[in-house]
């Protein structure tokens, strides 16, 4: 793992109608890492991702990607530079077929998609079986696979995943996280937002804990897994 920073967030603030959802956070994501932001509901995790993707405007602070400031750029410009997002709640296009959903993911590209389509189908054989089905007819787990596959189609350098485990059965969650690892091993940097701290910390190289809009802790995945306070707050201290 190289240590060059690909994504650097500096003092980022995000407001929603006067309410500060993110109150000035700074963190780095290095090339080839899986970094996770964990935290409870309303901690500002999703807002952070949306601000990086350009869907919400940052109130102040900056996002630097590969040395350039991308704050204030349009979402399409950001996708073109190689940052994609699988949004919270999957948000697949229910009336489009699975294949159309995947092609939409590559909307900003104009080159040949065959190889990437084949790769996504290799990662998610279920999607290949259902490539002509409407996205809305898939099960929750399959929809999440589709959302991840769709984000991959843009050939991202950084992929952001917003709560991929939301509302899924534990077995499927495990499956999805395995695939996230595989994707990362193929050279895609992953920024993962999760409430399921246990799973997230297990796959992540590094992690940040977000509480009411501020970063309260950071460390490697295994460090935080062993942290007593984290265990109590997010993992359910049983042992």
């Amino acid at each position, binding site marked *: 793992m190289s240590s060059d920073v690909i994504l650097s967030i500096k003092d980022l603030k995000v407001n929603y109608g006067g309410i500060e959802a993110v109150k000035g956070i700074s963190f780095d994501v290095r090339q080839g890492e899986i970094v996770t932001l964990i935290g409870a509901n309303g901690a500002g995790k999703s807002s952070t991702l949306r601000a990086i993707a350009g*869907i919400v405007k940052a109130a102040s602070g900056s996002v630097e990607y590969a040395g350039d400031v991308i704050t204030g750029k349009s979402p399409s410009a950001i*996708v073109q530079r190689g940052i994609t997002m699988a949004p919270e709640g999957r948000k697949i296009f229910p009336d489009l077929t699975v294949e159309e959903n995947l092609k939409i993911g590559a909307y900003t590209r104009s080159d040949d998609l065959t190889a990437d389509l084949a790769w996504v189908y290799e990662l998610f054989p279920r999607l290949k079986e259902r490539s002509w089905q409407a996205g809305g007819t898939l099960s929750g787990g399959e929809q999440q696979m589709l959302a991840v596959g769709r984000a991959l189609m843009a050939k991202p350098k950084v992929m952001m995943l917003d709560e991929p485990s939301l509302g899924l059965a534990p077995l499927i969650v495990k499956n999805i996280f395995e695939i996230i690892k595989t994707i990362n091993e193929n050279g895609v940097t992953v920024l993962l937002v999760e409430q399921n701290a246990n799973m997230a910390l297990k796959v992540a190289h590094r992690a940040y804990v977000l509480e009411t809009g501020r970063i309260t802790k950071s460390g490697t995945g295994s460090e935080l897994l062993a942290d007593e306070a984290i265990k109590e707050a997010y993992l359910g201290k049983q042992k």
Partner: protein
Amino acid sequence: MLTEKKDKTGLFIGAVCLAVLYVFLILLDNVIPQNSFTLLLVPVLKKGAIYSLVCVSMNLLNGFTGLFSLGQAGFMMLGGYAYAIFSIPKDQHAAVYQYFDGGLIQFSIPEALSNVLGESAGAIIGSIICIMIAGIVAAAFAALIGIPVLRLKSDYLAIATLGFAEILRAIFQWSGLGPITNGSNLLRKYTSLSAIKIGSLKLATFFPFFIAGISIALIVLLINSSYGRAFKAIRDDEIAAEAMGINLFRHKMLSFVISSFFAGVGGALLAMFQTTIQATPFKSAMTYELLLIVVIGGIGSISGSCIGAFLFIACNEWWLRFLDNGSFMGMSVPFFRDGFRKVVFSVIIMVIVLFFSKGIMGDREISFAGLARRIRGSKPSGGKEAPAK
């Protein structure tokens, strides 16, 4: 819709159906003798083709891009007026614009071309140019009002576009614009469908089908392109579409402008069909009629819109006319009187909305490839509705 593979048989059947339809229309104009049946059939066919085009254009916006816009009648009016204004012959200006000193625009494109190319070629090429102008005028207005209006969502967009159409209608009737729009008076004497002929070969019914056919084919191509996919993505989920890098505003604008262009083309054809044009009929009621057809046909189905348009026009102008006459098969029925047709029509609409809430076609399409497969499979059932395209 599901089989993306090019089925040559399907394409062949489609082409043959279209050719048969076009030959039939030409025969209808020239060879088949006029009787009480064709006198009813021909106008229904012409108007049905025009409404098909307008409804497909509305479906592009409402059904495929998910923008609930109610300005279609306004754009049709723009197109109709633009067509008429540029095709009124010079020597008729004094008569048409009698209250406005013969009007401002003192040339006619079909007439000018007729002087060069001969009468029939001039009329055909000239009217096609005027139809293009009609579309461009409607599209230009759409681009202008799209800038503020397309930032609105759902119901608010509908209200704003509806308001725009109504304001436009009022402005067109204002006497201050009289030298161009003839105020609240009729525009007439322009090149109508009956002037479309090659020598003695009349093309009055063929022409609207021809223009509508090309236009609908272009819309279908657009919907099946990557732009069309982006439109559908915006319809399904705006936030996700934005996250995929689709520029929401640009694509909404594109859909709005293209839809308005074809509404303008439809308006021009309607002006040709009616032989006179005035702003009054282009009320919100007309938009509701179009919306009704789109809903009955199936939101998100091109062939549905076409079938819906022909059915609606046929019911409205032909099949349900007997309800207004007071007699049915020779018997006089006390219920039947003027306006009763509208009552029955409303009941039919209610039944459709209650029991076929997705419309006749849902979001499916009639495909000639599917037809070909079915014929090869078992029964040689006809594609009666297929010529709607």
